[in-house]
């Protein structure tokens, strides 16, 4: 995902001389191509995210489009007030790009787990939020935000994520990864791969399960969400994030006023709630959070059995 991002950014910056890139001393083996090609538009501001966010706002107020890049919580939570006041309130054309979504930095520990960022960033006024599930969506979202003229948040995982479907053209639209009419799993981020596996397994049990990637969490297309699941038995949301403020909250909100709404089952990461986080790969931590393929299958079977 990181590579897909930087390649797309390089293309955008080649076309638009007003695109700048700032990083908070993060990006080894990722950002070098940009730094080499556009040294006059690249800045490592150091380990100082509040300053980075303010500087980005100041450059953007001078007519530029500024990408800021760092790890998970650092360019988001660490400088939240700068994003609220300096970037969003002024409508400054700043793109916050965070790498390490969810448990992507698994064994690095709790400080590097990004589990509340989507909800928090989505609350900022006027920002657009993109959570791509594969490199194709990363390319499409990067292209889009490079020209949107709006404050944006792009949440990236790490490296090596596979493409999960056919070409992603418009990241604002729902992307059907697998057709299915009995149950629909809405997923955001690379955890969509687990939704596809679960759907494949459930097909073996005679279940017709669709998987839809929702890359754009703000603005959230309530109408498209409702239209995508007419007549299904129920909807499952799957995210590498706490349920509060993330995909589940948004989908539930989209259905809130709909008398014919299907039940929505939210699957996400439980709140840490004072528990100590142990070392573990992303895969292991997701499994421990009850988000294994088996757990997804079991949850869906259980819900079907209750009907």
């Amino acid at each position: 995902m990181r590579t897909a991002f930087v390649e797309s950014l390089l293309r955008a910056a080649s076309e638009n001389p007003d695109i700048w890139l700032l990083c908070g001393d993060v990006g080894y083996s990722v950002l070098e191509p940009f730094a080499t090609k556009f040294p006059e538009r690249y800045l490592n501001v150091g380990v100082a995210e509040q300053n980075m966010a303010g500087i980005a706002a100041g450059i953007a107020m001078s007519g530029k489009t500024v990408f800021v890049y760092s790890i998970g919580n650092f360019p988001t939570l660490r400088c939240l007030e700068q994003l609220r006041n300096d970037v969003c309130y002024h409508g400054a054309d700043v793109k916050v790009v965070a790498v390490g979504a969810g448990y992507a930095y698994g064994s690095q520990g709790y400080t590097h787990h990004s589990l509340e960022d989507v909800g928090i960033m989505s609350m900022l006024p006027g920002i657009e939020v993109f959570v791509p599930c594969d490199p194709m969506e990363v390319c499409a979202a990067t292209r889009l935000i490079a020209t949107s003229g709006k404050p944006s948040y792009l949440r990236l995982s790490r490296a090596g994520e596979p493409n999960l479907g056919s070409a992603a053209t418009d990241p604002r639209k729902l992307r059907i990864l697998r057709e299915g009419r009995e149950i629909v799993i809405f997923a955001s981020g690379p955890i969509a791969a687990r939704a596809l596996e679960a759907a494949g397994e459930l097909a073996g049990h005679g279940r017709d399960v669709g998987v839809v990637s929702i890359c754009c969490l703000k603005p959230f297309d309530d109408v498209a969400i409702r239209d995508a699941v007419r007549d299904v038995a129920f909807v499952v949301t799957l995210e590498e994030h706490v349920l509060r403020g993330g995909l589940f909250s948004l989908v539930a909100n989209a259905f809130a006023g709909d008398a014919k709404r299907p039940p929505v089952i939210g699957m996400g990461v439980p709140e840490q709630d004072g528990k100590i986080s142990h070392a573990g790969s992303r895969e292991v931590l997701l499994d421990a959070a009850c988000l294994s393929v088996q757990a997804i299958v079991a949850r869906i079977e259980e819900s079907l059995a209750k009907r």
Partner: protein
Amino acid sequence: MADILAVLYTRILRVDPADPRLAGRDRFVLSKGHAAAMLYATLAECGFFSLSELDTYCRDGSIFTGHVSHAVPGVEVSTGSLGHGLPIAIGMALAVRSAGRGARVFCLLSDGECDEGSNWEGIMFAPHHKLDNLCVIVDFNKIQSFGSVAEVLNLDPFAEKWRSFGWHVEEIDGHDLIALERVLGALPGHPDKPTVVIAHTVKGKGVSFMENKLEWHYRSPSDELLVQALAEVSA
């Protein structure tokens, strides 16, 4: 601070009240956004809008909010949470330098807001990047919101701190109009270095009952006291 703004807007800043967003203009960022009223009054005196508009200050529906608002013609940035202005000013200084138009960026800080760590991130950054088109002015009146600077969080040795971070430092009487014009008119004070002007000021200068009184960070004068205050500053 009123003296600093008066010198900036009448002698130093290349800005055009008829075209506040003119490309290539100098930028002024008021980081101590709570001093909005003084900036609004200065901008009105300079013709960015009419003086009568100031009557709406803090009234329902007015653009003139108590903390400075970029809805007001001539105001570059809304601030109010301290420690935000300098990083923004640094971003502007980087951008206007790359545009090569020779514009300067001025940023006015309070002394109390130098408690904010974000300022020190910026104070470290600007000399590293040789931002000699950036000038910070500190309104050093020695009083912050809930006590004196010396009691709450002492800044001394203040000038030495800036110097050690790589700034060109000017330390002057912030009410000396000639000194203000001399240092602000001679930028950059040092090639390849940003400049900080530590302006020693007296809070409530020129009004006997306000000078150096913490309470006037909060209070509004009665009609009677207003008449007295205006008479004293006009004297």
